[in-house]
């Protein structure tokens, strides 16, 4: 299409179920010179509100979408181009883009998200995979989460890898009958999942409890781990916010859950009503309260963690990075101090526990660098 100097900014696809997004407001004015990671505009989906950050460097010449516009994924939001491109060329580019653009819902039909299923030891595991070629990456969510926690990450990392995201047992749409709710039991399921998916070795990315699970996999099956990216991980320090876990398990209504979930982020606006409703729906599924209790008991006792896997990182040779928000209210960022020299530590300023959502583009860059 036309002039190669013109770079379109299009509606991102955040998560498998996203079909369209609503433009909330532009954060970058026309004429702003953008760097990758700069905030461009706020977008709201039915699940979540987030800031879209620039993927490429360039000069923002045109804001095509207006606030309150609801647009399908891939629709034109704005145009970047150097000064040398004339306004007329940009107008022509926009006209051509709009004329040839086909919304994916119309192009592919309403097929819904492409979830897949694996049977690991009698436990049904839901997963998704994105990406054609390259090394395998496995994304492991934290306590009470699901594969949707990676909605800003999975596609981005999949540019150069096959990226799997799974629901741990008792979570998301995986089976709620947990054979062994300990961290070791969950790690065994991840290894079983790798076997069933034909993945010999993988880069493991674990958030929170998922970090402890990834560390446990590295401890028991080191040959199958290419690297560890641990996001605000459990398993490397003692302290954890036990009230958060207790509140997550006990919360019965939106009113109960909102303040609990807001502890996950530095910016409380990320916790939308839809997000809270989705978590309540999950918690009201038969077997979930019992599963969550059992898993919590497996790694936490009050405000103390029961699993110490810090030694896994000390066992030289392993390629690992730790990514943590300095506003983490669940597991203190101070636990990232004093790690062995082979572990790269990235502390992100102004970010809470849900680091992969709140600082998605920074995290995506770090995850891609680890491949």
């Amino acid at each position, binding site marked *: 299409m036309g002039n190669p100097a013109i770079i379109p900014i299009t509606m991102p696809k955040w998560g498998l179920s996203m079909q369209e997004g609503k433009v909330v407001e532009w954060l970058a004015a026309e004429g702003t010179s953008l760097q990758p990671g700069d905030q461009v505009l706020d977008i709201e989906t039915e699940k979540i509100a987030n800031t879209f950050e620039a993927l490429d460097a360039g000069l923002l010449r045109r804001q095509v979408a207006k606030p309150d516009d609801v647009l399908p994924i891939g629709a034109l939001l704005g145009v970047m181009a150097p000064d040398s491109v004339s306004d007329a060329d940009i107008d022509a580019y926009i006209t051509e883009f709009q004329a040839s653009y086909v919304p994916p819902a119309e192009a592919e039909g309403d097929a819904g998200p492409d979830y897949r299923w694996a049977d690991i030891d009698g436990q049904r595991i839901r997963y998704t995979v994105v990406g054609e070629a390259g090394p395998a990456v496995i994304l492991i969510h934290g306590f009470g989460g699901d594969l949707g926690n990676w909605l800003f990450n999975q596609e981005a990392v999949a540019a150069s890898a096959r990226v799997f995201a799974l629901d741990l047992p008792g979570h998301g749409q995986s089976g709620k009958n947990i054979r062994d709710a300990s961290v070791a039991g969950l790690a065994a399921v991840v290894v079983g999942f790798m076997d069933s998916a034909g993945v010999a070795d993988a880069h493991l990315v674990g958030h929170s409890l998922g970090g402890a699970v990834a560390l446990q996999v590295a401890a028991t099956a080191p040959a199958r781990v290419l690297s560890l990216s641990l996001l605000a991980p459990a398993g490397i320090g003692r302290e954890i916010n036990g009230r958060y876990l207790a509140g997550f398990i006990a919360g019965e209504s939106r009113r109960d859950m909102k303040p609990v979930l807001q502890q996950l982020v530095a910016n409380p606006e990320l916790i939308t009503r839809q997000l809270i*409703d989705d978590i309540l729906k999950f918690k*009201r599924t038969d077997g979930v309260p019992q599963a969550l209790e059992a898993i919590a008991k497996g790694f936490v006792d009050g405000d103390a963690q029961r699993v110490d896997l810090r030694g896994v990182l000390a066992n030289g040779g392993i390629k690992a990075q730790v990514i943590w928000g300095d506003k983490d209210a669940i597991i203190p960022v101070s636990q990232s101090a004093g790690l062995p020299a082979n572990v790269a530590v990235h502390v992100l300023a102004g970010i809470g526990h849900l680091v992969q959502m709140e600082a998605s583009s920074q995290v995506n860059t770090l995850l891609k660098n680890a491949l």
Partner: protein
Amino acid sequence: MARKILFQQAINEALDQEMARDPSVIVMGEDVVGGTGGDGEMDAWGGVLGVTKGLYGKYGNRIMDTPISESAFVGAAVGAAACGMRPVCELMFIDFLGVCFDQIYNQAAKFRYMFGGKARTPVVIRTMIGAGFRAAAQHSQSLYPIFTHIPGLKVVIPSSPYEAKGLLIQAIRDDDPVIFCEHKALYAMEGEVPEESYTIPFGEANVVREGKDVTIVALARMVSFAQKAAEALAKDGISCEIIDPRTTSPFDEDTILESVENTGRLVIVDESSPRCGMAADISAMVAQKGFEFLEAPIQMVTPPHTPVPFSPVLEDLYIPGPAKIEAAVRKCMEYA
């Protein structure tokens, strides 16, 4: 695993899963097995609309056809509930509940209160509501306000397949008598429903759509009409918040009041008659507890105070459809 199924399949799945989980759950009603007279078991229809189809083959005598004697079998279900069973009793049309009203409002609703809190009556009465089926005045009413009026009864009105399954499972597990109202026109509605069992608590409204200009409260079929109206209004820059109370007893006042505090405007869409109906009830509640939030008079979108007409033209006119909802919202917006 969530997949798309019909409203009536969601009801069937809830019954199936609860019968499998708890042997005290039984199903009874007119034609709920269907076709079992003589050697006809193979033909089992599962009710006039096939909602209970397949349950007889799985659960045998735990699902039973009853004579056309509502006062007898509803009374039997209430008695069985008081003796430890969890009957799900189907009474085809809510219009017919009149013939067994004593069993419902003077017996089932009162046991817990009159036996010092020691009696439980975990009975569910499933029944169809709503106009639009060309079924005339005796098969088309939305009489849920009558049951909402009676302390001791819980009244549940699902608006989608997801709601239907979760609310019915909750109803079966609840220890009080529940009137479960299924709008006929929703049976063919398709929606995403998890395969697993799940519950939706009573007394928790669902915010179907978020908006900032006008709050629309709607029940049952009216929820999808409100959504249509809201989509049309959005094109003119009017942003509607839609709230589905899901249960009229218990009733979630807080979610409505919080919404009206934000929007300042309230439209209530109710398919029951306007006098002493849900719209009047909700309107009174907001006028009392949220008066200072209101920037415009509360609008009630209801049918006229008449029986449901048999004439198709008049029946269509009777039903509070999207156009009437849209007009009511625009009227609210005239007050700056």
